[in-house]
């Protein structure tokens, strides 16, 4: 599957070779046009032992100036419980506590989080069909779900803050975007009396994009077809679980350990009437894996700008 996608990209590059930077799974250093309101509906789904797990987000983006944009997002999913169950912590053979590894999964759909952020483009070098841009971004998220895994996100799982830097280079045949960021999650104090203390996480991504259709731009009515190859990585610390101030042993569960992974996300994108953006992508693990989703996972995003 991976080889097919790489093959398609090489062919696309060879025959057409126009770059595109409207990445489905990362943000470019470019921002929302001034006074335009963008709405993006984001969805992710995968199968967990035959049951559907899905995540949904609605993102609002507004261009305040030619350099600054604000964004807000609300998310919902069936990934979490409201509260950790009674038997989440069990006795470790009389030697303190440990986290139970035999809890039945929950598939209840719940509201997850509110995310507020900004992106500031501080460097812009425009040329004829090319540009180099750099931006900084930051977000703060409120979420109150017991995310019982070490990998932290600012997409609904955790409350916390994050920020980073994005560089996007776009020349005729190549559009590359590089992102490096950090996430500082806040501790979750569960109503069950259990505290989840997460470590910091570092995220990075490398994205490539190509226009495959149309061969020649004629008017705004033409549907554009773009292909993307994105590599997303994350490094995070182990999760510390405490109950009544005592640490519960949790390192017998892979999802609670520190980890580093890289995923490959090939995507196809349709742009209808130069405004409606439809992104379809899948996620394949390349180096180690993420424990907060099952593979393959599928993403579908819809985006529209109101001018």
């Amino acid at each position, binding site marked *: 599957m991976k080889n097919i996608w790489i093959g398609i990209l090489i062919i696309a590059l060879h025959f057409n070779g126009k*770059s595109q*930077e*409207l990445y489905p799974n990362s943000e470019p250093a470019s921002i929302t046009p*001034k006074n*335009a309101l963008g709405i993006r509906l984001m969805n992710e789904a995968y199968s967990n032992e035959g049951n559907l797990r899905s995540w949904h987000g609605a993102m609002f983006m507004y261009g305040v100036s*030619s350099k600054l944009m604000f964004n807000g997002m609300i998310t919902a999913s069936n990934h979490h419980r409201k509260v950790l169950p009674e038997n989440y912590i069990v006795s470790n053979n009389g030697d303190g506590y440990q986290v139970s590894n035999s809890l039945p999964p929950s598939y209840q759909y719940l509201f997850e989080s509110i995310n507020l952020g900004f992106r500031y483009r501080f460097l812009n070098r425009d040329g*004829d069909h090319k*540009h180099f841009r750099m931006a900084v971004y930051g977000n703060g998220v409120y979420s109150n779900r017991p995310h019982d895994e070490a990998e932290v996100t600012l997409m609904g799982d955790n409350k916390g803050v994050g920020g980073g830097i994005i560089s996007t280079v776009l020349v005729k045949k190549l559009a590359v975007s590089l992102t490096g960021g950090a996430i500082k999650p806040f501790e979750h104090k569960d109503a069950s009396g259990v505290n989840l203390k997460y470590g910091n996480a570092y995220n990075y991504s490398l994205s490539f994009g190509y226009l495959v259709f149309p061969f020649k731009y004629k008017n705004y009515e033409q549907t554009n077809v773009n292909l993307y190859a994105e590599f997303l990585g994350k490094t995070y610390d182990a999760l510390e679980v405490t109950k009544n101030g005592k640490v519960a042993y949790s390192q017998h569960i892979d999802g609670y350990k520190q980890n580093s992974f890289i995923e490959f996300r090939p995507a196809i994108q349709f742009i209808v009437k130069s405004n409606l*953006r439809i992104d379809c992508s899948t996620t394949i693990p390349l180096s180690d894996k993420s424990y907060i989703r099952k593979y393959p996972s599928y993403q579908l995003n819809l985006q529209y700008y109101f*001018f």
Partner: protein
Amino acid sequence: MKTIKIIILIVTLTLGTEQLFANFSSAKLKVTGVTCSMCSNSVHKALSSLPFIDKINVDLQKAVYEITFKPGEKVIIDDIKNKVEGAGFSVGELTAEFNFNNLNVNKDFHYKFEGNTYHFVGVKDQTLDKTATVRFVDKGLTSKKEYKKYSGMTSYSCIKTGKSQNCCNTEANQRIYHITL
């Protein structure tokens, strides 16, 4: 007969007013940094919101916008630049058609029109008897390379700021557009 006279008077007045406001009739704008039709569309929508723009024809492949101005409306060139930059891109080149109506110009001639001053850079002595195409060479209205080239053709410091300096025989801090033919 009286009615006809009134109609003639109204028509004359209307035409007369148009004559008074006749300035830029059209422009050709090249936008840099644009690589997708969605980006071009953002620029198009931003430009369309300007009250003095009538029609826009775009060559998407070249990112060139052919703009027709509304007759009688005052054209503000900086507003075009601000709209392009607001959409996230830059002006690569901007030329406009202007009816000069027998104007004698020479190097560093300052032409005042509708509250703005147009400074001719790198031009020979000549009479502009009808419509001529002028090219803007200010920072932000052309490429950096072209700006550098033309700023070397004048000793006037107003080209550095786009605002009137000691060099210009006009009030301080007024907008001075720099144009060439």
